[in-house]
């Protein structure tokens, strides 16, 4: 078939075009690395720098206040650091060395001593009324977590309630005894309980760390975005044939219009599949991302995404006339579609309206499919199939427009 000769020729030309390979492979890899490492700062707990820093000033100095601080130490999301006085802690807060300042007042111990069981069981009422200041505790959030100060107060209130509850209950001997008895009766045999526990397993869908969760989103997002950059290169290739005059030679060769279009499209489909494979491989090897419970499902999604991208490229190639138009319209189209579909930031971060709007792009369907395969704890194959079929429909529509427009070539 003569279309295969065009395919071979274009593959040879593409393999010699370093600029194309750079944009399609090196650039997305760099983006993934940069965006991944940057956003990783917000999510990951792998490093201390990614924890919320809590500065504590303990003016009470009692056993109770020490217990509270120890409990806060247990929280993995917090890095607790003690300060001798409020002045030094406040300076650290203003210099952003800590994100939250927790001040335990000197009356903390006395306030706890006044509490009764009722106050503990009805924390929103009684002496506490759900407020930290009734413990003689103050929380001050810095600019980094200014919007989350109420949340932090709740966390500290809960921790304080947890540490003081046994103390308050123990002060009522009858209640303490009853609770102890009830606890002994209902406690199951530890060995029996152990036997009922499921055997520990390696769940492939669960990433090894919070850090790799970022790449579970960033790798498919930027891969899909850069797969569609093939649109520009395809359009340039078509325009190049026209500008060089080789299109006349192709038209005079014994090959049909469909054959010519297929011959020109297939090399870009192959390049696109290689590009996607390299990016996912790099995501696994370099960034520790998981390919999900059923990695084979990635193959049809990759194929359908590349088909949609190359069909869109074919359509654009038949709509534009000059390289300048490719640069202007092609880049606008590719970046806009990537933006509204959720390639640049997780779709779950987008408002509902944007999420719905994104569905007019094949990008969004690719991202939904990848999210289902890579991140969903309960993989629904029907969702992946639905996404793939939708992308095939996009491809067919783009190809049809391209084929119709290419009649000008005859």
């Amino acid at each position, binding site marked *: 078939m003569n279309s295969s*000769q065009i395919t071979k*020729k274009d593959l*040879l*030309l593409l393999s010699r*075009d370093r600029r194309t390979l750079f944009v399609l492979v090196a650039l997305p890899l760099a983006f993934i690395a940069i965006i991944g490492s940057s956003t990783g700062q917000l999510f990951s707990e792998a490093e201390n720098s990614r924890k919320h820093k809590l500065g504590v000033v303990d003016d009470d100095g009692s056993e109770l206040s020490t217990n509270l601080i120890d409990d806060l130490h247990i929280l993995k999301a917090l890095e607790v650091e003690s300060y001798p006085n409020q002045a030094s802690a406040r300076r650290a807060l203003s210099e952003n060395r800590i994100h939250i300042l927790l001040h335990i007042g000197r009356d903390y111990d006395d306030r706890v001593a006044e509490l009764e069981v009722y106050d503990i069981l009805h924390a929103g009422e009684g002496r506490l009324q759900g407020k930290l200041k009734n413990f003689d505790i103050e929380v001050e959030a810095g600019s980094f977590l200014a919007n989350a100060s109420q949340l932090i107060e709740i966390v500290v209130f809960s921790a304080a309630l947890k540490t003081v509850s046994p103390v308050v209950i123990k002060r009522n001997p009858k209640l303490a005894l009853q609770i102890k008895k009830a606890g002994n009766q209902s406690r199951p045999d530890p060995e029996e309980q152990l036997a009922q526990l499921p055997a520990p397993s390696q769940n492939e869908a669960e990433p090894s760390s919070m850090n790799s969760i970022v790449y579970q989103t960033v790798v498919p997002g930027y891969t899909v975005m850069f797969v569609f950059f093939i649109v520009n290169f395809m359009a340039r290739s078509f325009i190049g044939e026209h500008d*060089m005059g*080789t299109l006349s*030679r192709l038209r005079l*060769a*014994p090959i049909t219009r469909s054959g010519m279009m297929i011959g020109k499209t297939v090399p870009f489909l192959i390049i696109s599949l290689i590009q996607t494979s390299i990016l996912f491989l790099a995501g696994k090897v370099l960034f520790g991302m998981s390919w999900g419970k059923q990695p084979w499902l990635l193959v049809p999604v990759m194929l359908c995404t590349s088909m949609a991208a190359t069909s869109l490229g074919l359509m654009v190639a038949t709509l534009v006339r000059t390289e300048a138009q490719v640069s202007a319209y092609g880049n606008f189209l590719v970046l806009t579609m990537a933006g509204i579909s959720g390639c640049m930031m997780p779709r779950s971060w987008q408002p509902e309206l944007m999420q719905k709007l994104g569905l007019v792009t094949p990008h969004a369907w690719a991202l939904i499919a990848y999210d289902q395969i890579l991140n969903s704890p309960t993989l629904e194959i029907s969702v992946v199939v639905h996404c793939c079929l939708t992308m095939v429909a996009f491809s067919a529509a783009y190809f049809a427009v391209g084929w119709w427009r290419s009649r000008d070539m005859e």
Partner: protein
Amino acid sequence: MSLLEVVELRKSYGDQIAVNGLSFEIQAGEVFGLLGPNGAGKSTTMTMVAGLKRADSGTIKLDGHSMETDFDKIKTLLGLVPQDLAIYPDLTARENLNFFGRLQGIRGKTLRARVDKVLEQIGLTQNADGFGRTFSGGMKRRLNFGAALLHQPKLVILDEPTVGVDPQSRSHLLECVKQVSSDGAAVIYASHYMEEVEAICQRIAIVDHGKLLTCGTIESLLNSTRADLYLKVRGAQARLGPRLVGLAEVETLSEEEIRVVMHRTIRDTAFAINDRLTLVLEILKQAGAELLAVDTQEHNLERLFLELTGRRLRD
């Protein structure tokens, strides 16, 4: 039977008529020159003959096959050398030829033999593995030509094949065209260079505003033209100028001598020039001018073209 028959070809773009009832025939082994100023319709004619544009009306037949009904067959008989360099600069000369050969369905040993032959023909054997982008303008033009020869077409269409080419490559290209023609293929050759057309074409057609102005062998066309008459005259310059208006032009050669130029066109009848010459001689006699010499200037294609179209070829 002619190899190529073009009958009453018409093509318009909106209100603009590009080709207006053009007809001509070309025989196998013949080099046919197509001349015309820019916008005359020759490129449109060639693209229609190549099947790249559809004619509004008229018929084109190549080797008995109609363009309308048998284009797939015609494709195999045609070789097109467009004015643009229709080669891939990032492929080597051999890769370019291999690609265009395979595209024509040639494979294996046949392809290798044809590619080697064409490389030799266009003088690029030594540069077969050089990339197109590294070639000089002339080498690129030769490769552009070679790409049209691989499938041994019966008709080769060359559109300005020597634009921007050094004399050596031009000479090589013209030799190639002659070789192709002597191998039996017909050639349509469009060029702005009259000396090229005179050197290689057996017949030419001059077109303007989409119409065929004349067509025939170069000899017959030049024989049909009239040489200008030059009368070298001494004295009476001041009196002669106004009196010769409409009959001849006066050129001053020196303080004493002038030249009276009587332009002639192929539209002049024999009587017309006789009458004009009698009148001019009478005026010279009355003015007391002395006739020193009578001379003529032979016509060439450039002159013929100017007479027919009123424009120089490269205007």
